[in-house]
């Protein structure tokens, strides 16, 4: 992404005092060979201090691209536009999209204030250095007063905190000596070393076994309580979302098609896609005889999309004269519950 603005040209932005992050009308285009992928198409959401927001959707819906845009770590063929407002620890409101990606300001935010953990803990560490070495590096980078000895002590303490048994021995081991669950703990530890305000967790438990997943989610919850950070939780697993998040944004083809509290989304879903997704999931408490509900077709590629509802060709309730032909505005179901679907205009609530 090209961000040529000089840092001092940063305009002043207003932001609601309770928010720590506001994403406004974010678009991301990815240049692939000879076409242009419109991966994120006008995404807006905000994050309060201490809350967990779930960004849910299937592969290719733009959830990861959105999160990486916040950190400014998308590859160079991505171009972002819109606003990403962030309130720094010092209380200044910045539009992250205007910062130079390699600039001093962004680097002071990335990691220290907004941190990220990834899906595959196995590939997030270098195999050539010990875990302790890699974690201490973070402390040394972000805390100018730290010495090697103090960094090591800090890392040891953090390793204990994330529940790694025998940290004195573990700190000098290499990543291949750790299991997946332990590496994810170490990664969370790496993130904690800087005590960030926002944690972006991109499918943090998808590669882990269920019992380990339960441990990691529990750990994240308790750390959030202790440190009060906000979490942007990105996943396709609706079960995890229901257990972890306060608010949920459902994404489809680069748009947020439904937004609400976790109760609104799971108990009163309005968008045909959200409903279909919830119904197509095998549930532990439902009769096994029933056939699973199917959403026909596949997610299309977001190339040269006309203004339309991205879901129209898979939607049972598609209105042929409206849905494929125009931009779909947001409708409010009840305070805090937003849906992007033309059915809402007609008041035809009982569809699907």
């Amino acid at each position, binding site marked *: 992404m090209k961000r040529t603005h000089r840092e001092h040209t940063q305009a002043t932005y207003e932001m609601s005092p309770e928010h720590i992050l506001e994403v406004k009308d974010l678009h991301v285009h990815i240049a692939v060979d000879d076409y242009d992928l419109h991966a994120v198409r006008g995404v807006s959401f905000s994050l309060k201090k201490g809350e967990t927001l779930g960004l849910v959707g*299937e*592969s290719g819906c733009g959830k990861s691209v959105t999160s990486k845009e916040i950190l400014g770590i998308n590859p160079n063929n991505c171009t972002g536009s819109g606003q990403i407002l962030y309130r720094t620890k010092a209380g200044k409101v910045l539009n992250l999209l205007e910062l130079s990606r390699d600039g001093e300001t962004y680097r002071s935010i990335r990691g220290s204030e907004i941190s990220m953990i990834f899906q595959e803990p196995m590939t997030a560490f270098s195999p050539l250095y010990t875990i302790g070495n890699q974690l201490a590096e973070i402390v040394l980078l972000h805390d100018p007063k730290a010495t090697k000895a103090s960094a090591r002590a800090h890392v040891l303490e953090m390793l204990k905190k994330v529940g790694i*048994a025998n940290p004195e021995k573990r700190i000098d081991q290499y990543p291949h000596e750790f*299991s*997946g*669950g*332990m590496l994810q703990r170490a990664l969370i530890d790496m993130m904690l070393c800087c005590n960030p305000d926002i944690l972006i967790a991109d499918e943090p438990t998808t590669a882990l*076994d*269920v*019992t*380990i*997943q*339960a*441990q990691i*989610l*529990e750990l994240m919850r308790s750390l959030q309580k202790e440190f009060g950070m906000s979490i942007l939780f990105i996943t*396709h*697993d*609706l*079960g*995890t*979302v*229901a*257990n972890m998040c306060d608010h949920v944004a459902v994404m489809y083809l680069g748009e947020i098609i439904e937004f609400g509290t*976790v*109760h609104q989304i*799971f*108990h009163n879903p309005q968008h045909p896609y959200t409903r*279909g*997704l*919830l119904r*197509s*999931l*095998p*549930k*532990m*408490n439902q009769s*096994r005889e029933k*056939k*699973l*509900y*199917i*959403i*026909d077709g*596949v*997610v299309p590629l977001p190339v040269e999309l006309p203004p339309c509802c991205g879901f129209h060709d898979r939607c049972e309730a598609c209105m042929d004269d409206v849905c494929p032909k125009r931009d779909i505005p947001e409708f409010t179901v009840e305070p805090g519950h937003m849906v992007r679907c033309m059915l809402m205009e007609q008041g035809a609530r009982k569809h699907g």
Partner: protein
Amino acid sequence: MDNVLLEIRNLSKVYDSKGVSVRALSDVNLTVMRGETIGIVGESGCGKTTLGRCVVRGIDATSGEVLFHTEDGVIDFLKATGAQMKKYRKDIQMIFQDPYASLDPRMTVFDIISEPLRYNTRMSAKEIEQAVDRIAEQVGLNKAYLRRYPHAFSGGQRQRIGIARSLILQPKLIVCDEAVSALDVSIQAQIINLLEDLQKEYHLTYLFISHALSVVRHISDRVMVMYLGRMVEFGETEALFAHPMHPYTQALLSAVPQPDPDISVDRIILEGEVPNPANPPSGCHFHPRCAYATERCRTEAPPLVNHDGRLVACWECGKCQGKT
């Protein structure tokens, strides 16, 4: 022919490498009836994939028997002669987890699906084409796309190709090794329904290996829970999920996040991780993580005991029953 399709008896597999031997499977017993789906669940390293591969004889088991009931009587798949294998191997097929790695990128979809026919039958080119067309339609592949290469298809479509390939020889048993794990939720439902429809139509038997417990619950008639190479619990799906008896099964089921914010489960968070199978704990493999472990659990491996049709390997079975 009786109703039994497959009997697995005392199946063990030991992997040897550089002086370290890993017991991936120890003494697994299982009887599979015709037309049923057996779910095999467990975490990574529990031996579920090894079990599946031993059944198709993709790897050779160290000891035990895989008895396959055929028209010509019972044959032990592990000791079968070349001629027997040639005749009966086509009755057992496999669907793999990764739809990207399990299809040859240099073959067209038609070649991929028809390859088993070319090796195992003497069908004419025309017959082969008809057979492929029929199966493609059945699994929901557009006939017009059969001359394309796998890269042109999405994950769900590729999994349909894999299913078509496994079905083309009209097998009796299909080993589905994490067949839907790599797919998105909406695509996963499509494939699960397809597998169920095909089962009804062809009277197929599935060994459904998966770590996704809600999927296993949906598709299986009976479920086997494995831990570090051993079967720890086996029983009817509904009963097992409603009242798990082994402490490991209880923890496993409670760990599954439910897609409903109002369901609050008393989550049993297990301490630690699955131990290294090269150096498994003594006695009951689960004892270091078990809240009910006693001295006996540390020294003696518990046998599988039948509790009204449910098989459970636990010395303290009954102690934790109040918990569920």
